[in-house]
């Protein structure tokens, strides 16, 4: 017997049924009854498409997403700019393996040897790019200021889903009389290229910032590096102590000046935040970084990052 207690909603045309649970039951029912249909999946949605109607599954979180109209607008705006994309295809090496999403100071493990020990770092700074991926789209010219302002005005989780929709990949399984005959992946290569391009733009700006910070360390004659790590669009560093600062200038001025210069050359807006502390932990199995911001007084409010093991090999074709 199939489960029938899932909640269903029928669309206005009556041709689509929307559910939040029980998709596998529907699929098995269709296969057992030897029907002809397509089964289309993304990471968040699943859809059965037949000639008579559709069954659409979305998780409960996605149901709260109210900005599907912006998804199509965003994609159309990007797809209109094919000449621009072709220009960037010549200028940048657009490839997923060319994107470094994160990097950690390789010497961090030297601060902490024993399992269970904690190394606390105070006077740390976070520099992060404001609305990184949307800014990247604007700087590259795919969206204008008006659309940018519209996107950044929506709540954060919805905003992230909206920009992530550029990278959608659908898996399509074709069934004829209950038998799977074909399976393929459907994606728009132009949209995917734009996605990797904005990831690349953000990662390159982080690499530039990392390089500048390392150079400042050399100029200030620092014994240890300020750079701790960067993660997607935020970089974390230790402040230069007073006795090692550049003459007549406080640290904040140096980093502010760097951010202003980067804004002129690359175009991103940067936000500088002083952190309460960063803790480095050795759990025995992993090295972890806990970032505590000043605003959060609760000791349980922190961001957690796992430091990858650089001993692992990778194979890229």
């Amino acid at each position, binding site marked *: 017997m199939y489960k029938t207690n899932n909640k269903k909603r029928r669309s206005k045309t009556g041709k689509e049924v929307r559910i939040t649970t029980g998709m596998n039951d529907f699929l098995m029912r269709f296969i057992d009854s030897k029907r002809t249909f397509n089964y289309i999946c993304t990471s968040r949605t699943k859809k059965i498409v037949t000639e008579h109607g559709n069954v659409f599954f979305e998780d409960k979180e996605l149901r709260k997403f109210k900005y599907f109209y912006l998804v199509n607008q965003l994609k159309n705006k990007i797809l209109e700019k094919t000449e621009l994309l072709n220009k960037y295809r010549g200028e940048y090496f657009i490839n997923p393996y060319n994107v470094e999403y994160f990097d950690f100071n390789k010497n961090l493990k030297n601060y902490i040897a024993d399992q269970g020990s904690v190394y606390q770092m105070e006077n740390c700074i976070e520099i992060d790019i404001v609305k990184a991926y949307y800014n990247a789209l604007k700087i590259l010219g795919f969206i204008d200021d008006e659309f940018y302002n519209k996107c950044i005005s929506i709540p954060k989780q919805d905003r992230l889903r909206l920009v992530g929709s550029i*990278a959608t990949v659908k898996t399509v399984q074709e069934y004829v009389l209950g038998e799977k005959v074909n399976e393929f992946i459907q994606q728009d290569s132009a949209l995917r290229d734009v996605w990797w391009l904005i990831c690349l733009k953000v990662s390159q700006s982080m690499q530039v910032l990392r390089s500048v910070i390392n150079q400042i360390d050399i100029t200030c004659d620092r014994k240890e590096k300020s750079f701790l790590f960067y993660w997607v669009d935020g970089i974390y560093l230790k402040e230069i102590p007073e006795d090692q600062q550049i003459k*007549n200038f406080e640290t904040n001025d140096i980093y502010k000046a760097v951010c202003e210069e980067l804004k002129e050359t690359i175009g991103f807006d940067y936000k500088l935040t002083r952190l309460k502390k960063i803790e480095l932990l050795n759990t025995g199995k992993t090295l972890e970084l806990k970032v505590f911001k000043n605003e959060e007084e609760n000791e349980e409010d922190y961001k957690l990052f796992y430091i990858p093991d650089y*001993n692992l090999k990778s194979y890229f074709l």
Partner: protein
Amino acid sequence: MKQKKIKKFQFRNEKGQLYWLTQRQIINRVKKGEILSSTKKSNVDLISFYEHYSPSLEITENFESKKRKGKKVISKTIKETVTQAINEVKQEEEKEKKKTIKRGKKRELLKEDISNTPCNSVPSRFADSDAFMADLIVEGKIKRKPDATYTLTRLDGTFFETKNKIEFINEYNSEVDILYDVVDLILDSPDKNKISSPQFFTSGYFFLIYNFVIVGCYMNFKETEIKGCPSELFKIYYGLYVQNE
């Protein structure tokens, strides 16, 4: 008896160290001709002190120009540093591009659109790996697994699981080494022409999620009904490789 609070102003010496002076102390030092460097926090109008207490020194102009010169030097350094960093990143990008071109056919195959390639099954956890990665990166969050067990599906299909990190790394690295060898064997072999589909390796990559930190993207093999399909070839050459080992 109530103690009178004396206001102090912040200065910085040549070594960059901070110190505090009262107004009287400032005046005494200025009279002696000592050059002082104030900070933003102190908000002291040093020029007026010098004009009043040490006019003969003609330091005002030098002080201002020295201050300005110092700022210019710093600004120029930052500008140069940023330009240098951007060039370094571009050079790295060019190096990566050259590496890619050198690999030639392998990379070209990767770049081609896979949507026209027929196949009859794709392991579901591999198929939407790029979308999963996009979601993960966009959200910027990694969720912690309740038990820190490391898992790996070996190339021969067997499953390996351990809670020992070193053991896991060794097992994983040895699988990658085999992967390198077998793929090179196939791409250099005449059997490669048996593949009717133009793509060999597609963009559906499987993840090695090592404690939920993504450490790389790897290969996905798709099965097809066409004779000599990639995964069948892989199985043949893997068998030969293992036999010869």
